[in-house]
């Protein structure tokens, strides 16, 4: 029990979704130095303070700690000497016992002296068995398990380390002799194997989750938005990404920063009084009141992207309070009201919007014209207009003059296109006609690109 155990625990913790940095790992090591491993509850309290920094993290920590140390606990106790032949198992070795796991010194020999494991099984000494299993798990380095198919291999190694080989030989001998003692022993062996498999399973869940989750998350960020609905916890990921963005952009729109002298203005003002600074001027920063208009194409080809853009924009509601959203496919309309009152979780609202406005036959010119007519008065130099769509106009006229008017009246027009750049302008895509009026036109095919866009937007608006 020491640094190695701690490192493995922290890995398991990361797998459970608690972010732990290297600096915190070092802190944890210092904490362990202070507290020691002996008192479990105390150690748990201390590590929770050091490693888990939000309330949900604390809950996860508690669960993970119990899972992890429940078994490690029995390994800490020295294996009770089950008989004179019990092999001296290398203590609860952090150094990791022999990797080959050849623990089962087949020393029972011909005299008929039963092996240590057989004795334990015959006695039904659960505590001793568990301790032995825990040691065997360490000897077999079960924590190195990575993929699910390794379970059988590791289970076998653990059994070996516990001395199964000797036991099996003995069992065979007994059965050949037709000894009635063979039957309960065989049953006990089967039960033991079950138990080992269960333990290996647990260890797999603890250890491999970290890598599995990291892999999944990376995949989710890179996969095309259209296929994203196949992942179960994508909502949680979007929420988490949005929270991170929000944390880094929140409360940036500050008012006056009284306390810093504006030397230039003070000196300029003092000229009037023959160089006497009669009035002090303080630096101020101006708060901009950005307004965002977002127009989403919700026709079937683009709906997935629209869903995630809306989710994102409403998830960062705290830093972007003034968002008005519009949806269009065959018809056009404002959908801001759907999101009123759905604080934080906009999933249901997005579903509703998509259900109501979904359709086909998009007409971008008509949409732009309608948007212009409805919002001409609302557009000003602080308005940002975001258009999400593939600009595939079914061979209708593009109507870029409306976009020109919109872009002249507002601060900027940003276009998000769920298709790759190489396809802009191919077929019935009118993207080239719209491009001159957009400050930025970006592809948004996956969550990573979407996140980058929202980050850019927030940086720009504050």
């Amino acid at each position, binding site marked *: 029990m020491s640094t190695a155990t701690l490192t493995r625990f922290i890995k398991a913790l990361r797998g459970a979704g608690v972010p732990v940095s290297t600096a915190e790992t070092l802190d944890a090591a*210092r904490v362990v130095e202070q507290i020691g491993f002996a008192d479990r509850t105390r150690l748990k309290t201390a590590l929770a*303070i*050091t490693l888990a*920094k939000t309330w949900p993290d604390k809950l996860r920590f508690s669960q993970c700690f119990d899972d992890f140390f429940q078994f490690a606990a029995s390994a800490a106790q020295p294996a009770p000497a089950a008989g004179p032949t019990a092999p001296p198992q290398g203590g609860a070795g952090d150094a990791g016992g022999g990797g080959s796991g050849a623990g089962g010194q087949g020393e029972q020999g011909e005299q008929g002296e039963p092996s240590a494991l057989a004795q334990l099984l015959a006695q039904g000494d659960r505590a001793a068995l568990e301790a032995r299993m825990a040691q065997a798990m360490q000897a077999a380095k079960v924590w190195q398990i990575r993929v699910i198919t390794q379970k059988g291999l590791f289970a076998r190694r653990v059994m070996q380390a516990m001395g199964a080989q000797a036991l099996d030989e003995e069992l065979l001998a007994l059965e050949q002799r037709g000894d009635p003692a063979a039957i309960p022993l065989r049953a006990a062996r089967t039960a033991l194997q079950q138990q080992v498999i269960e333990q290996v399973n647990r260890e797999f869940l603890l250890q491999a989750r970290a890598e599995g989750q990291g892999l999944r998350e990376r995949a989710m960020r890179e996969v095309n938005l259209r296929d994203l609905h196949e992942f179960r916890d994508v909502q949680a990921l979007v929420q988490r990404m949005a929270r991170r963005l929000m944390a880094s952009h*929140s409360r940036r729109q500050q*008012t006056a920063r*009284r306390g810093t002298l504006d030397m230039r203005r003070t000196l300029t003002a003092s000229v009037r009084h023959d160089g006497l600074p009669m009035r002090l001027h303080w630096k101020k920063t101006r708060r901009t009141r950005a307004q965002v208009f977002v127009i989403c194409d919700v026709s079937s080809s683009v709906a997935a992207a629209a869903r995630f853009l809306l989710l994102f924009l409403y998830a960062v509601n705290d830093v972007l309070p003034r968002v008005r959203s519009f949806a269009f496919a065959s018809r056009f309309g404002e959908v801001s009201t759907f999101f009123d009152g759905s604080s934080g979780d906009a999933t249901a609202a997005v579903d509703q919007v998509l259900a109501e406005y979904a359709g086909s036959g998009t007409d971008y010119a008509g949409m732009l014209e309608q948007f212009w007519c409805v919002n001409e008065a609302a557009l000003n130099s602080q308005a940002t207009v975001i258009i999400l769509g593939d600009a595939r106009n079914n061979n209708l006229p593009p109507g870029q003059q409306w976009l020109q008017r919109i872009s002249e009246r507002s601060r900027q027009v940003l276009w998000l296109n769920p298709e790759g750049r190489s396809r802009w302008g191919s077929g019935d895509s009118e993207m080239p006609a719209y491009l001159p009026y957009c400050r930025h036109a970006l592809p948004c095919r996956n969550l990573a690109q979407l996140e980058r866009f929202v980050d850019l937007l927030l940086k720009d608006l504050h």
Partner: protein
Amino acid sequence: MKTRIASVEEVRSDFARQGYICDDDIAMAVFLAAQLRKPVLVEGPPGVGKTELAKAAAAFLNAPLVRLQCYEGLDEARALYEWKYGKQLLYTQLLKEKLADVLGDASTLEASMQRLAGFGDAFYSEEFLQPRPLLQALRSDDPPVLLIDEIDKADQEFEAFLLELLSDYQVSIPELGTVTARSEPLVFLTSNNTRELSDALKRRCLHLYIPFPDRKLEEQIIAARVPEIDASLRKQLALFVSRLRQMDLKKQPAISETIDWARALVLLNADALAPETVEATLRLLLKHEEDLVSARAELPRLLKPE
């Protein structure tokens, strides 16, 4: 300041002596903070004794308490230091004539410049420095307990500015250079979670979450703070409050409000929680009209003995 703490029990028992009843989590956090010299970030609902914790720790360690209350728009000038601009300007005016004397015999502009430069940074010296809480804490000879209260109310920039202080106990002042702490302070940061704090800040701190206490702990707290209260009344009171907290309220009653309520009941010579007494004093516990209405409707259930 006391430098060594023997054990978590010592923290706990000393806090109890001061009337601050705490569980193992809190005592452990104080113990670790003092041993590892790391700041503690304390989070939890309002009124669970986050600020009190820092005060109790200061009393326990026999250290001075320096408090910085955060608010929106708090900046370095208010938290760390400020130049005494008024004094600087006044001095330049008063010294104008002296300046003429000094520069009188310098014939060229260059010579005067050189002579002026010879005086050093007279106007940006300690003389004109107005220390604010953070600088006070760093320059204190006796290691103080520094309480940075409601850090979530301050802005992002201020949080970033704190990072240097929290990890190395030093700050940079452009005109003076780096100021290192004479003695490392024990830092408590409190937050009511009105916004998410940055990961960088959390990484540098130990993290303590204080939830509302359970019934037993709350009973002990009441006993410590309002010793004159009758034991059976105390029991009823803790039960009532814990049931109240399970309801869907706009604002849940805090520990401080429970204590106020207990004091009020003692003043009224109540020896049991009768519906009329509760009805009359419930305002001490619940501060929103809607909460009062819903609690009154539930009163029989809330008062039902176990």
